[in-house]
């Protein structure tokens, strides 16, 4: 058995650069190590494991792994849903209804896809908070932060475009509310509106099909790209350091790491399945562009900008409020360039204070947005 497998590997290794393939897999979270692509797999692996390193399937770093697992789940369930989904206003609702009623386990895949997206956004936010508190944005880890922040923004967009697709009344009006926010932001709003084929407060036939294309094409590709860049920079600069952690060596470490990974995978799937079964998201009636559903606000993660726009509409013109949003989001992405002090560990008191204020303000605006919605 063992000999046969070695045989196959050898057979393959004469025809493929297996080390390169393994190296590619490590770029998507399988394992953290710099692998020498020129050496045979066994040798390269032995060499990589010979260097002392930490597992990242442990401690606060698991947030990043959960993100990878969730994105994998989203791509998998999304692919299954795409087998039955039809992206036109006439048939979108009916096709989702078919998925939920008639296709075997269709409702389950739909619910897992929905809950996966919500968890993904939540975990990405938690992950950025941990980066901030533990200072994982200082040189040389600026790109870790930038990739994480951009990944969060990409996931906002992926979730937003995904919400519109079932073409239910709630989804439709939630989408309209979100478009109103996007349209208020200068430059970015103009590009966004052009891409999505809508205007300030309407969703057309084009919007649906374009959302679909962005949702299944551009945004997943960008998410995968940012994950790849994240692991690339982590391999170059090393994992973030956690106080008191011991670096380990050897193949037992790899086994232990893979076991941790498996445990994490099992737990994430368990949580997703539980949410999908116990708290299914309701499937509302078909959207009617001519009748506004009262009480529908934007998605939960956009409640804060929504609340801000609502509150500021009394004092600021909408372009000014939009500019404020643009500045806030830009500052968020390029935080490593703004805070260049170098304390030994964690964020500086000033940055931390500002961050706490920012999070509190965000939460307050979220509550306000939820109240006015």
């Amino acid at each position: 058995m063992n000999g046969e497998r070695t045989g196959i590997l050898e057979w393959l290794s004469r025809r493929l650069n297996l080390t390169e393939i393994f190296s590619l897999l490590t770029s998507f979270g399988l394992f953290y190590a710099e692998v020498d692509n020129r050496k045979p797999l066994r040798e390269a692996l032995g060499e990589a494991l010979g260097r002392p390193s930490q597992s990242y399937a442990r401690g606060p770093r698991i947030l990043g792994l959960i993100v990878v697992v969730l994105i994998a789940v989203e791509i998998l369930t999304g692919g299954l849903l795409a087998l039955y989904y039809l992206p036109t206003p006439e048939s979108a609702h009916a096709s989702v209804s078919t998925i939920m009623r008639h296709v075997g386990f269709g409702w389950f895949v739909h619910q897992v896809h929905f809950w996966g997206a919500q968890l993904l956004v939540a975990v990405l936010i938690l992950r950025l908070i941990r980066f901030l508190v533990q200072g994982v944005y200082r040189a040389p880890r600026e790109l870790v932060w930038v990739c994480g922040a951009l990944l969060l923004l990409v996931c906002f967009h992926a979730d937003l475009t995904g919400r519109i697709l079932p073409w239910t009344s709630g989804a439709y009006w939630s989408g309209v509310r979100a478009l109103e926010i996007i349209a208020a932001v200068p430059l970015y709003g103009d590009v966004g509106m052009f891409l999505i084929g809508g205007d300030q407060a309407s969703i057309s036939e084009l919007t649906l099909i374009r959302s679909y294309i962005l949702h299944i094409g551009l945004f997943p590709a960008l998410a995968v790209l940012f994950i790849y860049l994240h692991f690339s920079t982590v391999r170059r600069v090393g994992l973030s350091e956690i106080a008191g952690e011991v670096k380990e060596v050897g193949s037992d470490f790899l086994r232990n790491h893979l076991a941790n990974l498996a445990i994490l995978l099992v737990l994430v799937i368990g949580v997703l399945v539980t949410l999908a079964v116990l708290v299914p998201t309701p499937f509302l009636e078909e959207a009617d562009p001519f009748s506004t559903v009262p009480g529908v606000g934007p998605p939960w993660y956009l409640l804060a900008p929504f609340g801000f726009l609502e509150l500021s509409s009394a004092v600021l013109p909408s372009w000014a409020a939009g500019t404020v949003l643009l500045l806030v989001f830009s500052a968020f992405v390029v935080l490593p360039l703004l805070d260049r002090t170098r304390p030994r560990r964690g964020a500086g008191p000033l940055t931390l204070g500002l961050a706490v204020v920012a999070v509190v303000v965000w939460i307050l605006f979220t509550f306000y947005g939820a109240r006015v919605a």
Partner: protein
Amino acid sequence: MKRNAATMTNALAIAALLVLSAPGVGATEQCGECHPEERVSFASSVHAREGVGCTSCHGGDDTTLDSQSAHRGEFRSLSDRSEIPGVCAECHASQERMRPYNLPVDQYALYQTSRHGMAVAGGDDRAAVCTDCHGAHEIRAADDPQSTVYGRNIPDTCGRCHADAALMEPYGLDPQVTANYRSGVHGKALLDAHQSAAPNCTSCHGVHGGAPPSFGDIDKVCGSCHEKARRAFLAGAHYEGMLAAELPECAACHAHHAIRQIDVAAIASSCSECHDQGSAQVLLGEKIRTLILAAEQELQKAEERIREAQRIPLEVEDHLSRLEEARTYLTEAHPLVHTVSQEAVEELTRRARSIAEEIQHEIYAELDRTVAHVGLAGFWFYLIMTLAILWAYKRRLRRGKSGS
């Protein structure tokens, strides 16, 4: 060339406009020179549009401006009101003249049978003649919203006399009738809710042959619209009983003019207006009320369950069509209240209720998530086993390391 053509077209348009703007009022019609007010009001009438001129009713000569010669011959001023119905009838009772307009010719005959007509024939010059309702010179077609006899305007038109207490006093008529009408369901539907099919005064009293429905005929008048209610009323005990007690049938409970709709919830209190509190009849009223309200409640619950199932989503098309069937039974049960028979009402409310209950039970079974929950528990058992194996594996790794 082009400009000439344009000028020609303009000239033609102006000429056409001039001709069309005063059809029937020919150059020969000079009456308006001395009677400008009448001329203005007449110009907007349907008569002016159809080529009926001043002389058609008044006689005389409309080609001269000389007052003497204009009013000579068969001129009539029509200042004697009793003449008017006859004058109108000269054309409106003529089949030959009315045929092209497809208008009825029996108005004059009907008028003569009406209270108004009989009073006028008896020498009463205060009773209404044609012009009191239709206007004298500015007579508009009945489908013209500005007409005094347009459906929505009729209560006002009748009220011009019938709400005048001094005018009604010698006849012993109640001047509150139009105010009462406005406060009733019919008046509210017509005047507030703009439901043009809602009844106005003439719907019950007749148009030209206007007269109050007499005792014993009320159910027929109401029944011309409320067919099912009348059929139920005639089949029930109230009909004979009310005739014997000289009660005005429908109006005994629903009143007249200020027509009141009796809500299902108020049936019993309405019964106790005539029957003693605690009597078998009031109890029957309560029973009927309970039957209908209970069925309504079940239908509402069934509908809520269906909405709940729709959100999941479950297949509910069949349930929706059966809910519609149950609603029809309940709708049919409402007029049967007039039979004052528990059995008649109960048969339909029972059907409505049993369908609604069936729907609820079926959806309840479908909403039951026990299977999903058991499946979830099984899945977690599997997950925990997997985790246990992984942990055991990790422990072995750790022990092996400490061993070495």
